[in-house]
């Protein structure tokens, strides 16, 4: 019975934890501009993150080594430092976007401007990292994030014309108002939103934090394989809401209030309350994960003590890095930069940097020196190699497309 409960809790946490500000914004933007013509990208991204997170989790559970320790061991300090530079920068962008997301969600709830909420959000993130145990932190934000199911409910309440909606998704056509370049640019953005590298840093370091062993692999696999696809369904629901309400009205998503407009149209104040709690939990949870990831990546690269399982005083450099990250993220937001814009760029840069972390994990997952009998099976390797091609193609195409389309304008 305890096991069933643990599995259910893990799955629910994975659903709530899958969505962050990147998924919320990108799916709404795409839905409002392309309808469901890009819905096929979400399952591609979800399968990719299942595969990647599963490999990284297995490597961490079997060898006890988290992602960046392995990247340094395998690539040497020079290539790993270049890798760290890119990963850390993108992670910092994501931290900034998530803190901005928390502030915007609090603004929706309170009508107090986001600038007043930003330091509050950053302080909240810090105090949770400082004082709250890893498992509680994960479960509370994950479970509250389930409030985002209201997006799926809203799709039904809006009573759309189902045949038209499925036709958009099954036989995708690029709308006349959009070019092929913007279509593929947003395909990469959606892919990057589903497969953000921080999820993998966090997942593999989390496996070490929670002291996973080979015995826990089954549970972790189930959490990922059930939880992430259900999270992906919520992603599509966000896009569908935007496609039903915003696309016909010709509204482009440039703020968080537009993301929630369809939900309010469908369910009124009650739905708004749910969606605000959901967005707050999802962005706050992701802010915790990205802030921790900044500490994890740097500490693992430089061989410092890290982890929430240690007292802060036993991992001093790790905690100082996270404090500095939060301060820098908040400072960037105070320049008046639009958090939604930071989010849109961060998901594309995530796609660009993805091969840097994917390839070393794929190699180590096949190394018996680390993995013993738990190396990748043939099926996993075929799928993982196919994804290597997709990830490389997305990464290489992203910058040219960003230039050609003016970042999707």
């Amino acid at each position: 019975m305890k096991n069933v409960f643990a599995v259910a809790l893990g799955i629910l946490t994975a659903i709530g934890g899958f969505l962050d500000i990147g998924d919320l914004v990108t799916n709404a933007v795409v839905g409002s501009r392309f309808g469901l013509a890009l819905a096929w990208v979400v399952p591609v991204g979800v399968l990719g993150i299942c595969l990647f997170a599963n490999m990284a989790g297995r490597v961490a559970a079997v060898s006890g080594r988290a992602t960046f320790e392995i990247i340094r061991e395998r690539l040497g300090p020079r290539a790993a430092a270049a890798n760290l530079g890119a990963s850390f920068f993108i992670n910092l962008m994501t931290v900034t976007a998530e803190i901005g997301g928390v502030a915007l969600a609090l603004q929706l709830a309170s009508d107090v401007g986001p600038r007043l909420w930003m330091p509050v959000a950053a302080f909240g993130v810090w105090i949770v990292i400082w004082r709250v145990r890893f498992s509680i932190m994960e479960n509370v934000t994950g479970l509250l994030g389930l409030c985002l199911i209201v997006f799926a409910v809203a799709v039904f309440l809006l009573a759309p014309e189902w045949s038209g909606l499925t036709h958009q998704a099954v036989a995708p056509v690029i709308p006349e108002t959009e070019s092929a370049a913007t279509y593929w640019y947003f395909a990469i953005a959606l892919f990057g939103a589903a497969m953000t590298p921080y999820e993998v840093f966090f997942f593999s370091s989390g496996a070490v934090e929670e002291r996973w062993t080979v015995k826990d692999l089954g549970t972790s696999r189930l959490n990922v394989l059930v939880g992430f696809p259900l999270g992906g369904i919520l992603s599509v629901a966000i896009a569908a809401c935007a496609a039903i309400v915003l696309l016909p009205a010709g509204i482009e998503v440039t703020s968080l209030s537009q993301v929630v407009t369809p939900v309010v149209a469908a369910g009124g104040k009650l739905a708004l309350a749910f969606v605000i709690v959901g967005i707050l939990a999802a962005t706050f949870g992701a802010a915790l994960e990205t802030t921790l990831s900044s500490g994890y990546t740097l500490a693992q690269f430089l061989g410092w003590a890290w982890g929430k399982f240690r007292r802060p005083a036993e991992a001093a450099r790790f905690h100082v890095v996270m404090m500095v990250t939060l301060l820098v993220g908040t400072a960037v937001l105070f320049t008046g930069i639009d958090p939604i814009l930071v989010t849109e760029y961060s998901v594309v840069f995530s796609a660009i940097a993805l091969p840097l972390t994917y390839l070393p994990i794929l190699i180590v997952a096949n190394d018996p020196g680390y993995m013993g009998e738990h190396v990748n099976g043939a099926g996993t390797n075929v799928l993982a190699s196919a994804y290597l091609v997709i990830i490389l193609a997305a990464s290489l195409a992203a910058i040219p497309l960003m230039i050609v389309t003016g970042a999707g304008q």
Partner: protein
Amino acid sequence: MNASSNTFPDAPRQRGRLLDARLHLLDRQMLDDRGVPVGIVDDLELSADAFGDIATGARSPRVTGLVSGHVVATRILGGQPPPSRLQTIPWRLVAAIGTVVRLRQTDMSFDALWVEHWLRDHVVARIPGGRHAAK
């Protein structure tokens, strides 16, 4: 020189595990006997006979220690770090080599930890809750 005129002695027979210095030692995490990270293997120290010509039949050079320190900058950019930044951990302190290098119990203080200790004493431990485990 072709194969038939090769006068080198046979390579020593391998007993036990073969370690590749680059793959299995360099850039590995070192943990002390309590499992606390103390640094990363940045270099290896070889016995003095490893340098210059090695006489036939002489004892083969050996790894005498692991070298660690705040040298990530010179390892990335090249160049020679000042010797004061490096610390040698004698090989006899190595307890096990696996996915990490485990060290035996020792009174030795690890120089690489001074930043950690400074930040602990001056920043982290002074913030309320810094010395307690999370709840």
